[in-house]
């Protein structure tokens, strides 16, 4: 049996390894991916920059079969060719209506959007609102995004955004983009020696050469000019570390490998294979058991790898954004699940955990507008602080435990529907209870650590800030569950139902405070969108509990 396992493992590994090498293009862009560019407050590879820009403009990671970096160079080398190509994604129906565009159409051309005049008053309001740090309405978000999209494409056409010429002396100074080669006074004041000036002149020529060879689809000269371009950039006087090959190549690998996507695919696979165990017997049963477990381990490894890469690239713990917390919670959930699985040898725990983690990662992978995956510098208050890191990781770990408890409790409710024996149900309630215990410990500790951090940073242990209060509410809800169970008032059914409902408190603390209430000191994590998904989930949970109660009258 072991043989199958290893063959399967090797197969899986090979798909992992080879799925990254794509088909070769006529023009090669690979070597340009690692070109350092300064943008959004950090140095990143051109690859990441291209992906972020293309994602913002088209709403997709690649467009019409062209990779992000290819598209970026196309916009730069031949801007006018893109005027009539439908590539700017507009989602807001209200916005389409205002611009007189067809509501079924999803992508629009620059030429179509040439006249944004009707939106200018809105843009003024948005500008004022952002100045005052006010929340934007969904329509205003749409307008804001559209202006960004159009200006991004245009500014790349001018060469304005491509800040790839490093500032030679100071790492915090803005870098120079191709438009500065015109030349700008700032560029000349920094590069005042003849040698550098000559190099800058050469860069200009190379840029033209690059654009020409791109338009002529001349692979050889395109490769030549771009390689030379990179070389000259690295020959200019530079800050230490340039061209940051090590971290940037890690980031390119991270971009191409999609560790979290691979992780959720394998989590789903694991969940399916392990679920099939119930229907099979004998050899097939064993095969499914091994492959399923292996898939879950592979998924977890990919998950850990992605997480490790992300931390290494950003040089910090994942405490800054909603996206990072979702990824972390799914990861820790698996850790707890493996622990409980090891303790109780119950495959069901693993299935429930794989499903939950997969849901978390699928959301993180597919909702870039709500869960922004880009790596950004942290708000000042979040930087280089030990207590903060510990506090956030502890709190979010408790969310993971509660999410696991929620999944297990839902599984108990399913068992009620399937009329499983009471003793078996009891065991599963115990699993959920243990997950809740882990969660309570972590949430209590994390909330207090939050107090320690707040005391250290702001001078008060507890300030009744909404995020703090909701962490407390979630804790109180679970305390009520634990005390209710202890008193014997919550039978297995109500225990499970209560555990599921208490998780709604966690959801409010985790998502609601930042995305719904939008007040308080934790404003650095604020965002918008996704409310409809969350409310749908809450509604489904309530209906499900009611349904089970109605159906099985426990």
């Amino acid at each position: 049996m072991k043989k199958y396992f290893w063959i399967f493992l090797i197969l899986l590994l090979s798909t992992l390894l080879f799925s990254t090498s794509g088909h070769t293009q006529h023009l090669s862009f690979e070597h340009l991916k690692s070109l350092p560019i300064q943008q959004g407050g950090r140095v990143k590879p051109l690859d990441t920059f291209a992906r972020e820009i293309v994602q913002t403009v088209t709403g997709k990671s690649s467009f019409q079969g062209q990779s992000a970096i290819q598209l970026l160079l196309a916009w730069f080398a031949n801007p006018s060719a893109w005027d009539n190509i439908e590539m700017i994604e507009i989602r807001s129906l209200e916005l389409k209506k205002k611009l007189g565009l067809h509501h079924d159409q999803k992508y629009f051309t620059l030429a179509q959007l040439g006249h944004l005049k009707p939106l200018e008053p809105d843009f003024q309001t948005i500008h004022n609102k952002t100045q005052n740090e006010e929340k934007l309405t969904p329509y205003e978000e749409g307008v804001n995004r559209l202006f960004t999209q159009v200006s991004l494409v245009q500014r790349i056409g001018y060469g304005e955004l491509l800040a790839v010429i490093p500032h030679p002396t100071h790492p915090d100074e803005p870098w120079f983009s191709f438009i500065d080669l015109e030349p700008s006074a700032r560029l000349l004041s920094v590069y005042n020696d003849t040698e550098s000036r000559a190099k800058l002149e050469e860069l200009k020529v190379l840029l033209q050469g690059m654009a020409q060879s791109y338009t002529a689809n001349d692979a050889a000269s395109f490769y030549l000019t771009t390689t030379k371009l990179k070389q000259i950039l690295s020959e200019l006087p530079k800050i230490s570390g340039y061209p940051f090959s090590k971290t940037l190549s890690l980031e390119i690998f991270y971009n191409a490998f999609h560790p979290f996507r691979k992780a959720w695919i394998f989590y789903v696979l694991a969940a399916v294979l392990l679920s099939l165990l119930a229907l099979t017997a004998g050899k097939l049963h064993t095969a499914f058991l091994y492959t399923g477990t292996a898939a879950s381990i592979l998924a977890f490894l990919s998950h850990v790898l992605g997480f490790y890469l992300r931390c290494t690239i950003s040089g910090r713990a994942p405490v800054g954004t909603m996206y990072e917390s979702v990824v972390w919670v799914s990861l820790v959930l698996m850790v707890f699940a493996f622990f409980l699985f090891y303790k109780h040898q119950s495959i069901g725990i693993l299935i429930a955990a794989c499903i939950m983690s997969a849901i978390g990662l699928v959301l993180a992978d597919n909702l870039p507008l709500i869960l922004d995956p880009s790596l950004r510098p942290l708000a000042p208050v979040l930087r280089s602080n030990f207590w903060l890191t510990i506090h956030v990781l502890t709190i979010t770990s408790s969310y993971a435990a509660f999410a696991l408890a929620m999944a297990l409790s839902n599984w108990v409710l399913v068992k009620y529907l399937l009329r499983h024996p009471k003793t078996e149900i009891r065991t599963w309630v115990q699993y959920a209870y243990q997950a809740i215990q882990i969660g309570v410990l972590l949430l209590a500790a994390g909330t207090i650590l939050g107090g320690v951090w707040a005391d250290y940073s702001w001078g008060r242990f507890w300030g009744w800030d909404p995020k703090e209060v909701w962490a407390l509410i979630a804790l109180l809800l679970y305390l009520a569950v634990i005390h209710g169970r202890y008193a014997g008032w919550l039978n297995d059914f109500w225990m499970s139902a209560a555990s599921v409902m208490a998780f709604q408190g966690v959801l409010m603390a985790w998502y609601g405070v930042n995305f719904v209430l939008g007040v308080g000191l934790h404003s650095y994590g604020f965002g918008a969108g996704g409310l409809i998904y969350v409310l749908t989930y809450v509604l489904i949970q309530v209906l499900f509990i009611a349904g089970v109660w109605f159906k099985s009258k426990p």
Partner: protein
Amino acid sequence: MRKKFLHTFGSLKLAIFLILALAGVCTYATFFESAYGTQAVQHSIYKTFWFGLLLIFIALSVACAALKKYPWKHHQVGFVLTHLGILILIAGSFVSFMKGIDATLSFQNGETKTHYICSDEIFAVTHVQTSATFSKTMETGPYPREDSFASFSFPDQTNVVVDRFYPHAAYETETIAHEQGSGSAISVRLQNQFVNTTEWLYFDMPTQAQTQLGPAQISFKQLSETDLKYFLQKTKKTQSLIGEIKLITPQKTYSVPFHSMEKSLQVPGTSFQLKNIQYFPDAAVINNKLVNRSPEAKNPALKLELFGNKGTETHVSFALFPQFPSTHQQNSLYDSKIEFVSAGGLPSEQKSLQIGKLNDTLYYRVNSSKGIQTGKVEVGKSYETGWMELKFTIEKFYPKALQKINYRPIRVKDPNNPKVPSAVRFTFSKNAKQMHAWLYYGEVNSVFFEKDEYRITYQPKMESLGFALQLEKFEMGVDPGTDNPASYQSRVILKDTLRNVNQSHLISMNEPLDYKGFTFYQSSFFKDESGQPIGSVLSVGYDPGRNLKYGGSILMVLGILLMFFFRQAYIDAYRKLKNRGK
């Protein structure tokens, strides 16, 4: 009896009820905060008596739940520790709430501060002649108030009450006709196709008796009988005398007066003609060309052509330098010289509208390029000004007017970041007389009531630190290549003469300064008009309950750990120990 008490208050039923009650109140509070702001929720929920009572009940329940199981068994260590931890935590919170300080301190670069600003506010009234002072310190809260929340009685039976408080107050001025009004007021409307404005002018207030509207000055003044005659004198725009042109020939000197708008002149008694006369009030030679720099007669000059029987020649004469030859480096055909004698410049071209008042009648005098127009003004009737096709109307005329300022509460969009300050109203009363005076937060003002001067104050309460803190410089770091702030830090010098301390410190985000029980945290900063940071805001904390809270927290977490995860291990270890003892 004791057992019954413990069982009632330590019952699980009550515990769960209290837990859910607290959860419910907190849920409501967060939504309340989302709508009304942090200050409001603190005032209405978290810092109220009843919320404190709820916490006390929880503490009682926690204590009784632990006590009712006394004497405790060994496996209950975790349970007892957890509940004890919660008790200590709640106790610490009360200590912090009662004795703690949460204040701010803001200073500009270079400034030294010895006091911090509390959230409490001080209302004070001083009778200036006698220096009698009354004051009250209190917290006004986040809501508008219309009750007498501070009242002071002076020995002369003058009562002063603070009876209005608007947390965010806006004001509008209104002019009303009133018997007690000290002077007159008019409302002037200026109107054309593009402009339509109304201004109030107050006759007895020097700053508000005139106003500038575009190029024109509008003023309102008192006239006497003698003034009126001049006031009403009209003049057509005439040629005004600029000066005199002297033609100095070897035989004779001729003088010709020269007015504005004259282009050519005949020199009387000769065949000479002066043509193409150009007047430069403020002449300068730039690039070999004569140009004019301003309309003021700073360096008056004339350029003209002298036309005679031998031909035409150009002369330039500067009034201030008559000794210069007027033909530039050339000999004159006529051996003549032109000298220009300036009359001292043209009368001002200022456009103005004056409204004059004699008894209860209004007159106007408008000065425009068309000359001076004057006349009597009827309220409500429009008159031409002569500039920009503007017409003016005196819409209202109150011979006795009072300027009234109306304050009203407004709801700000973001209560946590209000751009509008709070204001209070002081009401003075004696016998049947009454007067109101408004003050914005942080203001001191002098008011007169019944001929006495009073000074009223509405300021934050300041408390002494017992030492001084000087801000050397506030610095802001940015993310590479952006304007996004990456770090905030204040370089400060701590000066304590008592302990002979003079140290410099760096306070940054997450790196506070601790001294004598106070902790200073980087909280915010302020900028000048160009956006450069020029000062820092620190929050000042003093928390005597900190140790209790930390201790309670540690006990609680330790207790949970024991209770949930190491209970069995603990029991086993205990048994082993006991067995070994046997």
